[in-house]
């Protein structure tokens, strides 16, 4: 059952007022303007035991993603397609508000929103991930480990997941006379587009990108939009117990579309540089 859990720092009234006044003057607590995002660093391939991996830091938020490409069985309604699963764990090392245990609703939403960004953009061509249609396919596990929490897990996780997938390498298998044979050559996943999510928070009448933990603690609503390499919107998720005016929605779409382009360039560069090593 869903209920509002307080999973963030307590922010007192004076601080809240300070944040609102700052937003009115387009100057946030950490000095950013509304449409500025924090420093983004992307490390490609820290976990060599995974087929792909990435460690993303967005300000003080740190997320690691590992991708495993295994063999599995297809879903009955898509017998000729591979299977992709996004699973998230906000680790108890990451915040004083996290307890060990099965994922709560926030973590499930995080995993599902990142999943939809990947799936709905058709980033990975799932039809190329069948080994024996109806029987054996590749199962791509995207496992998210949140290491340090300071707001905007949606975007940090999305960037890490996309980087890990785009840089993943694996050995294909084929089935000969009922026996599974592993090929020698390492190949990439069939990746055709780079989906990029951009999240805005809202306090009062102000919208701003890439909220910190403190901003999330006072924020009334959230809007996460994901764009593909052709600048199409491919997934949206409103969150929080607040609302948006129709105009805010339309305006924010364009702010996010532009920002997604910027960040896509950084992800592509990180993947490309890693490929050179």
């Amino acid at each position, binding site marked *: 059952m*869903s209920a*509002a*859990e307080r999973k963030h720092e307590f922010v007192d009234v004076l601080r809240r007022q300070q944040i609102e006044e700052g937003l009115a003057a387009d100057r946030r607590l950490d000095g950013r303007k509304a449409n500025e995002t924090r420093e983004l660093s992307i490390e490609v391939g820290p976990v060599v035991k995974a087929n792909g991996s990435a460690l993303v830091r967005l300000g003080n938020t740190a997320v690691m993603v590992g991708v495993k490409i295994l063999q599995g069985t297809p879903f009955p309604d898509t017998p000729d397609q591979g299977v992709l699963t996004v699973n998230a764990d906000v680790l108890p090392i990451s915040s004083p508000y996290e307890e060990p245990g099965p994922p709560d609703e926030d973590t499930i939403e995080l995993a599902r929103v990142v999943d939809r960004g990947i799936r709905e953009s058709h980033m990975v061509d799932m039809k190329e991930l069948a080994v024996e249609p109806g029987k054996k396919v590749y199962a791509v596990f995207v496992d998210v480990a949140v290491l340090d929490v300071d707001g905007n897990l949606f975007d940090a996780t999305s960037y890490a997941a996309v980087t890990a997938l785009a840089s993943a390498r694996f050995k294909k298998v084929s089935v000969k006379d009922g026996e599974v044979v592993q090929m020698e050559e390492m190949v990439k996943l069939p990746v055709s587009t780079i989906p990029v999510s951009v999240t805005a928070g809202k306090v009062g009448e102000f919208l701003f990108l890439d909220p910190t933990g403190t901003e999330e603690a006072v924020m009334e609503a959230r809007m996460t939009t994901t764009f593909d390499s052709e600048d199409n*919107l491919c997934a949206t998720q409103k969150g929080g117990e607040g*609302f948006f*005016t*129709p105009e805010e929605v339309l305006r924010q779409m364009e702010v996010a579309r532009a920002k997604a382009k910027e960040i896509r360039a950084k992800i592509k560069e990180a993947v490309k540089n890693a490929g050179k090593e």
Partner: protein
Amino acid sequence: MTELINARNIRIDGRKLDELRPIKLKVGVLNNADGSAYIEWGRNKIMAAVYGPKECHPKHKMLADRALLKCRYHMTPFSVDDRKPPQPSRREVELSKIIREALAPAILLEEFPRTAIEIYVEVLQSDGGSRVASITAASAALADAGIPMRDLVVGCAVGKVAGKIVADLNDTEDKEGDVDLPVACMPNLNLVTLLQSDGAMSKEDFEEAFKMALEKCRYVYDLQRQALLEGYTPQKEDE
């Protein structure tokens, strides 16, 4: 492969592009609940119940300045083509949260500090658009329970099927179409409380679809208000 929209812009179930499926809504359908509503929307059959304001359990979740809003969206095992296992799926967990966040802005939670308000949605038969049908029914159930609200909440999905923007996708259109865009809003205040989308849309696509969704919400709102005015009439809710 079915032709989802024919040459004369008629959809597989005979509807025009911007036409909604038939909707029936009735409130006061359960005896024990403080408020309840039953909606049939296409083949969706959904029951919503509200309990509260009531004592908050467990106590450490109690909020000093407002009511704790709880919400569960649940599908019965027989509601879908295959049998759904009884335990909640990840999809149901996410929808419980999304629906709660779509309704919360409308409820005067601050009038009932230290209490809990519980919203339960049970999908007895599911079709495309079950989340917006659920929100529409749950909002009616809140009103039926006498919970004070800033505005009602209604929802409607719009999507893109065979290259065209269409209103209120049914199951087949949802599965074989390109885009689903469920929206909920407080119609009198003109504020959006739920917004999701799946599938690639250009700027123009989104703007056309979003506008259509808000218009259709207005239509659903008229039905909803009508149902609340009629209140409970002692006919069976599923005739």
